[in-house]
């Protein structure tokens, strides 16, 4: 379905079909489709040796002793060998936060299964693993905390002995709800849980470290979303000045948040490369990824909603816990997730009062990293469950309850109950469109006559997604990394090509194309001649990197700013070559134009670089290279939004859920490349389906992860993702360069809520619901059998 709003490229002067708003094919796909992308695992350096880690088999234990194999002791390194290496520390700025120190290699005790205890060096990975198997570690096992509710009890064993409890942080949004609780006509309560997940990009993590003696510099090639932040963190841990650390991110095969982190493995590799004098490499395998490395998304909610008899939400009372694992990860900390829960749980709705307690609980699990959508997948599931609960309690249709509570278009921009500044949009219209798209009335008629084991259900979810968070937002959340101005370098080459150097990382988003489209939009240079350079701290300006749906807004804005400033210089030179006043000329289709007279940008470049004798002495002393800095007009972020509607069938005998129809209406403002946006939505929905129905890392009471292979950790595949119908609305953001909004995460946010609501809609006539994710066949059948037992008793 085509969009019906503004497409900036359609109206730009000199439109060539490559600018903002055009679905041009992705420039980077040529190398990806030919298999010539270069990932960490493809790189071979002379003299490079492989690393394998000895990892803790226990969730919580004292390290008694580590015995190295006698014949290879010099190839095995423990915490004692990492001289002067500092632990990874990521402190929240919020008052009351308790600090954790994540060592590069464990010392004293281990705090989760998979924590690195020693690192082994050999010519091949297999030999390094042989060596790791020969290291004998004696542990004294301690009681493990595998459940956040247990860990929050006052008498629980301690993950960090000096804390006194297991809370990284507890926060409160206060409100007096006593009067509302006494008088509200409708009160609904739910207890909900979301599973711990393991983000699973196609390419895992991996790092190559080498010490360049000539430059006295550590060069670390790593699969990361944020090279500059890794550089800052790594330099700190290794005690190196930052100019002696260079981070290169080559092709990166997906991130989703999993690569928004400074790794203990990076610290170890960096130390060893310098210490040993030869390059070392570590490639994460799936077992390390699943069993030992950072997890995400485990929430627990106790929620009470108060409403009028007509379904209008009066107040929400929330108690939320997040299982943050053993360590606060760098740079997002252990508390981003809970901070988001507190501030975005109210979703796109209006309400009179809101109270929320959050806890970031330390447990004996790997730390948590923000996964695509961060807390939003959980809070959307929680809030949308409450909307359906109000609907069930009042007897109103679920979409009507939502329409009564959504912020209306005429209230935009709108400051919500947690002071989120919704920039623009028509939320009710998005919902109305998906209600129409899935034929609610038709499904309701079929539901009314069904009597077999297979039942139909309809579910909705609507949410808004803050993207491109600015300085005040991240400072307010206490995150130790606060974004400021985003920068981009625009440099004209002597033959008229354009290099755009950006500090963000493109790991599948197509930014090598979309940022080129922005450059084209401003300067008219063909995107074939625009090269986007990223993934190297030596070549790009500082950036906090790629996270939080920020790149198209922030890096896009920075590229536009740099290109505009570069355009002024091109005009000054071009006007001289045309012998006209600069304000009489303009840039169009890659040329400086004045009336019928033109000079190409390549001619301008050649003249400035190689034939300066043709220019006056005072023309453009700064040259044809610009660093532009950019912030949005307000730093409170853009708010894209989407409504999801899904029809499922539930096999009530086997618990299987089939997605029969899935309709989405999203609004990402002006879409720089609508094809890429659709791809983002599709990919996100696939991951959201995983959250809803498949993905779960269970732990036993000893803290052992139980899904340590992809045979046990279920990821959705091609057969689990239905044909999606994606409709677009286009409401420009008033605060971004082209009206674009961050859109990278939204697809993953809606499915858990919409699918859970659909399943529970199907089960409602049978008197049961499933109140935790993922909704597995076992949980559905169990709920129905429990209900049956209660009926009998």
């Amino acid at each position, binding site marked *: 379905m085509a969009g019906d709003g503004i497409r900036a490229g359609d109206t730009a002067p000199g439109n060539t079909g490559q600018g903002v708003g055009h679905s041009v094919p992705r420039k980077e796909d040529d190398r990806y489709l030919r298999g010539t992308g270069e990932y960490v695992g493809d790189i071979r350096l002379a003299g490079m040796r492989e690393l394998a880690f000895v990892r803790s088999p226990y969730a919580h234990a004292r390290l008694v002793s580590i015995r190295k194999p006698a014949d290879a002791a010099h190839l095995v390194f423990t915490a004692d060998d990492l001289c002067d290496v500092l632990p990874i520390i990521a402190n929240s700025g919020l008052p009351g936060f308790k600090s954790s120190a994540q060592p590069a290699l464990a010392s004293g005790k281990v705090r989760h299964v998979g924590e690195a205890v020693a690192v082994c060096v050999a010519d091949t990975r*297999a030999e390094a693993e042989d060596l790791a198997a020969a290291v004998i570690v004696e542990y004294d096992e301690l009681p493990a905390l595998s459940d956040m509710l247990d860990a929050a009890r006052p008498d629980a064993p301690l993950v960090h002995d000096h804390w006194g409890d297991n809370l990284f942080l507890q926060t409160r949004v206060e409100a007096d709800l006593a009067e509302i609780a006494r008088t509200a006509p409708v009160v609904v309560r739910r207890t909900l849980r979301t599973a711990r997940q393991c983000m699973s990009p196609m390419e895992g993590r991996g790092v190559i470290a080498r010490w360049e003696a000539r430059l006295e510099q550590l060069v670390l090639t790593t699969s990361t979303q944020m090279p500059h932040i890794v550089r800052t963190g790594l330099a700190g841990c290794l005690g190196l000045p930052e100019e002696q650390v260079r981070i290169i991110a080559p092709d990166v095969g997906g991130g989703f948040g999993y690569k928004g982190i400074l790794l203990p493995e990076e610290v170890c590799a960096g130390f060893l490369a310098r210490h040993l004098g030869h390059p070392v490499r570590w490639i994460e395998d799936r077992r390390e990824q699943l069993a030992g490395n950072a997890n995400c998304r485990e929430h627990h909610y106790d929620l009470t909603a108060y409403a009028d008899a007509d379904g209008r939400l009066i107040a929400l009372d929330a108690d939320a816990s997040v299982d943050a694992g053993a360590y606060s990860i760098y740079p997002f900390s252990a508390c981003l997730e809970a901070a988001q829960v507190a501030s975005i749980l109210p979703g796109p709705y209006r309400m009179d009062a809101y109270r929320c307690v959050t806890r970031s609980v330390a447990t004996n699990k790997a730390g948590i990293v923000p996964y695509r959508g961060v807390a939003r997948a959980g809070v959307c599931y929680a809030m949308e469950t409450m909307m359906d609960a109000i609907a069930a309690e009042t007897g109103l249709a679920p979409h009507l309850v939502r329409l009564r509570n959504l912020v209306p278009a005429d209230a935009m921009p709108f400051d919500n109950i947690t002071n989120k500044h919704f920039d623009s949009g028509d939320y009710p219209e998005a919902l109305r469109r998906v209600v129409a798209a899935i034929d609610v009335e038709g499904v309701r008629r079929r539901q009314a006559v069904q009597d077999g084991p297979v039942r139909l259900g309809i579910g909705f979810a609507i949410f808004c997604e803050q993207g491109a968070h600015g300085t005040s937002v991240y400072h307010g959340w206490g995150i130790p990394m606060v974004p400021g101005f985003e920068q981009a370098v625009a440099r004209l080459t002597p033959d008229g090509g354009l290099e755009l150097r950006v500090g963000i990382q493109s790991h599948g988003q197509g930014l090598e194309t979309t940022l080129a489209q922005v450059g084209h939009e401003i300067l008219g240079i063909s995107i074939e001649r625009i090269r986007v350079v990223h993934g190297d701290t030596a070549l790009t300006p500082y950036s906090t990197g790629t996270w939080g749906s920020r790149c198209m807004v922030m890096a896009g804005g920075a590229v536009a700013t740099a290109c505009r400033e570069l355009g002024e210089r091109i005009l000054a030179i071009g006007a001289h070559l045309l012998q006209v006043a600069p304000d009489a000329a303009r840039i169009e289709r890659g040329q400086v134009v004045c009336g019928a007279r033109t000079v190409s940008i390549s001619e301008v470049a050649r003249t400035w670089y190689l034939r300066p004798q043709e220019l006056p002495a005072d023309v453009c002393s700064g040259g044809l290279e610009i660093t532009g800095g950019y912030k949005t007009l307000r730093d409170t972020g853009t708010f894209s939004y989407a409504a999801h509607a899904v029809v499922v069938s539930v096999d009530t005998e086997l618990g299987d859920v089939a997605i029969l129809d899935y309709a989405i209406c999203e609004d990402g403002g002006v879409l720089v490349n609508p094809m890429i946006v659709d791809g983002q939505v599709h990919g996100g929905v696939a991951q959201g389906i995983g959250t809803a129905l498949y993905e779960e890392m269970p732990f036993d009471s000893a803290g052992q992860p139980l899904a340590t292979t992809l045979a046990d950790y279920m990821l959705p595949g091609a057969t689990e993702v239905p044909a999606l119908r994606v409709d677009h609305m286009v409401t420009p953001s008033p605060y971004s360069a082209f009206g674009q909004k961050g859109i990278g995460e939204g697809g993953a946010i809606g499915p858990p809520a919409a699918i859970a609501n659909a399943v529970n809609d199907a089960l409602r006539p049978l008197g049961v619901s499933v109140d935790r994710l993922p909704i597995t066949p076992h949980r559905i059948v169990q709920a129905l059998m429990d209900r049956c037992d209660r009926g009998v008793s």
Partner: protein
Amino acid sequence: MKPVAFDHDCPVTLEEAARLIARPGARPIAGGQSLGPMLNFRVARPDHLVALAALAGLTGVEDTAQVITLGAATCHAAIEDGRVPDLPGGVLSRIAGGIAYRAVRNRGTIGGSLCHADPGADWLITLTALDASVLTWTPSGGRMIPLAGFVTGAFRTVLAAGEIVQAVHIPRPGPGFGWGYVKACRKPGEFAHAMAALLVDPARGVRRLVIGATGGAPVLLQGVRADPACVGDALAGSGLGRVERRMQAVVAARALAQATNGRVMPA
């Protein structure tokens, strides 16, 4: 993870293969679709891997009025594609087509799957229901082992050290037979958490229901006991929880419905 170091032997005769397999620390490998991951996880740590898939003695196919014989090294894809004889209605082809993913079916073999004896393996469950047997080979002669007694537990068989499964004998059911096979999987191609195969063969007076994915050897119910109503009792000591036992009864009922297709068939 990477496997431990091992030697890879490629014998060309059954005699040579049997001798190589009999060495301490040796392990046969056919398609390697189960053993491969076990090697990478270092669950399997052989000193020698002995490759069987290319042995001429394991690839023959024979079709008579009574029995279909498939060489043990016949890959799932060959059966799926109809490159070997099949039972009426494409019974074997449909079973093969439901195993894991095509890449696995291209290399995985019917004999290797049976010898691996995974409690959730398709061939083990379905061929037990079809009353198939394996023909084994040793230097001193072979034997015919009915699949009903072939597996003694999860990943355990009655095979002696050095004994090689050479072929699978699948008896042709009588005219008008009914066949049902239903598995409950989280995703297509994943291992099932409930599976039932049912053969109703009125001409021979045979009715066999096999429940798989129990965590142990397949559970065979025959005659009047080959009925979904008996599944719960039959699994009482299996260690399965009540939800899993319920699901097993459901897939058995659906297999029965497939096999009888609305017909009334004698037990």
